[in-house]
């Protein structure tokens, strides 16, 4: 007679690692980009004193940063800025730089221990720091190029917020990016105005005219085709994924509908698809799929 004791063994396993479990499974909701309506996020983002939670996992943060970076590079629109994640990362970079500096000062003092071996950790630290800084720089540059491209669109969005009394731009961009966006579009506007627009009739002077034959506002191309990897694994409180369904073969998948073709598609977990961005944008913001 076979007795299935897998669950009992699992229980025992859990007991031994209970302490680690507590620290690592700490619900880190701060980087959730889905919170477009999350006022709490906005408030805490506005708060300059962001404390770095020592228990939050550094490796996890790095992986999240890479995911954000990748999504930003491939998506046609400007994605919400991960305020908490970036604040933590920047503080860590600062700490690391100071740490390396103090370490290398120690090398100066006692020169007798200066061998190749003792230098290796320092070299690794420096290389690692450079890698991290590269990712951050590339991420921000990519965002800036998008802000340039859609500056009129973003401006129009901020002028007519969907929720009254609530500035959407603060959620979408960091403070520096908002500053850049405002100043850059002002400079551009001044150039256009002084060189061309002031010579035109008054009704043609608008830079954001949508009534004419062609709309002057460049919107993101919502139907851009993107490559996605379906990773799944976003669980709610009850431990199940509410959006997960099963396809005809009983495999777990998400089902999405392409409106224009009226076609339903099953996205299997772990598979790669080429699909329109507008179809998967919700799943991407939840972290259920990532762009590649």
């Amino acid at each position: 007679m076979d007795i299935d004791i897998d669950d009992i063994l699992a229980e025992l396993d859990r007991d031994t690692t209970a302490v680690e479990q507590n620290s690592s499974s700490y619900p880190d909701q701060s980087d959730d980009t889905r919170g477009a309506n999350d006022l709490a996020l906005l408030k805490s983002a506005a708060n300059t004193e962001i404390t770095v939670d020592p228990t939050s996992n550094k490796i996890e943060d790095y992986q999240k940063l890479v995911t954000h970076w990748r999504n930003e590079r491939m998506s046609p629109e400007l994605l919400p800025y991960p305020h908490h994640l970036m604040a933590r990362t920047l503080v860590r970079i600062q700490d690391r730089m100071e740490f390396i500096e103090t370490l290398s000062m120690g090398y100066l003092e006692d020169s007798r221990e200066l061998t190749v071996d003792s230098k290796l950790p320092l070299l690794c630290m420096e290389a690692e720091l450079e890698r991290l800084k590269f990712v951050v720089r590339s991420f921000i540059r990519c965002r800036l190029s998008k802000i340039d491209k859609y500056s009129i669109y973003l401006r129009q969005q901020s002028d007519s917020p969907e929720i009254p009394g609530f500035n959407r731009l603060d959620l979408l961009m960091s403070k520096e990016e908002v500053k850049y966006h405002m100043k850059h579009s002002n400079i551009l506007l001044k150039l256009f105005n002084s060189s061309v627009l002031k010579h035109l009739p008054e009704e043609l002077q608008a830079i954001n005219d949508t009534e004419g034959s062609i709309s002057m506002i460049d919107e993101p191309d919502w139907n851009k085709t993107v490559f996605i990897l379906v990773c799944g694994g976003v669980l709610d409180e009850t431990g199940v994924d509410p959006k997960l369904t099963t396809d005809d073969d009983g495999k777990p998948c998400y089902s999405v509908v392409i409106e224009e073709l009226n076609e339903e598609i099953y996205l299997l977990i772990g598979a790669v698809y080429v699909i329109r961005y507008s179809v998967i944008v919700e799943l991407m913001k939840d972290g259920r799929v990532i762009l590649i």
Partner: protein
Amino acid sequence: MGYYDIDDILADGTRFPCRFNYEIPGLGYLEGNTGRPISKHSKLELPLWMVHLLAVVGAESGEDSGAEEPLPFVELLPPELFAPRVLNAIKSGAASLDLHSISPHFYTLAERWATLFSDKDLSQVLKDMLLERGQEINNYAVSVSLFSHRGQTNDSAVFLQTLDEFEKSVYRDTNVNCKEMKKWLALK
């Protein structure tokens, strides 16, 4: 297609044949004789950016009070670009067609035309053509030699002459990416 897209602006400048449905005073300069009225049924070649509004908007006359569609200012005549002769050539062998000599902005114009008239046949022909030519473009784009500067044989040079502007940008992207990939794999 964006407002500041240069290729779109160039494509919009292409002239299309059309016929006026009204006699309009003062517009004679379109025909070349300034100061005269433009006469009814006169045939003209006008740029697309002008024509695509004029062919939709009609004169507001008092008699027909919105009951029927007002007659637009101009009527677009079927252009040389999408004549049956051209469509048959596309259907018979899209890959060997010299698209650049038909029009350097063929796809953009065809897209506009199909949108303006909801032309299903034309869009079907376009889709097939793009697929067929896309394979050919891919073939030529991936076969790049790493070290020669030009990176093209006589064959592909001839083929490149037949691409329109949109296909050229596709070819350029593919070619550059393949080259970079090869470089990275071979040289590090």
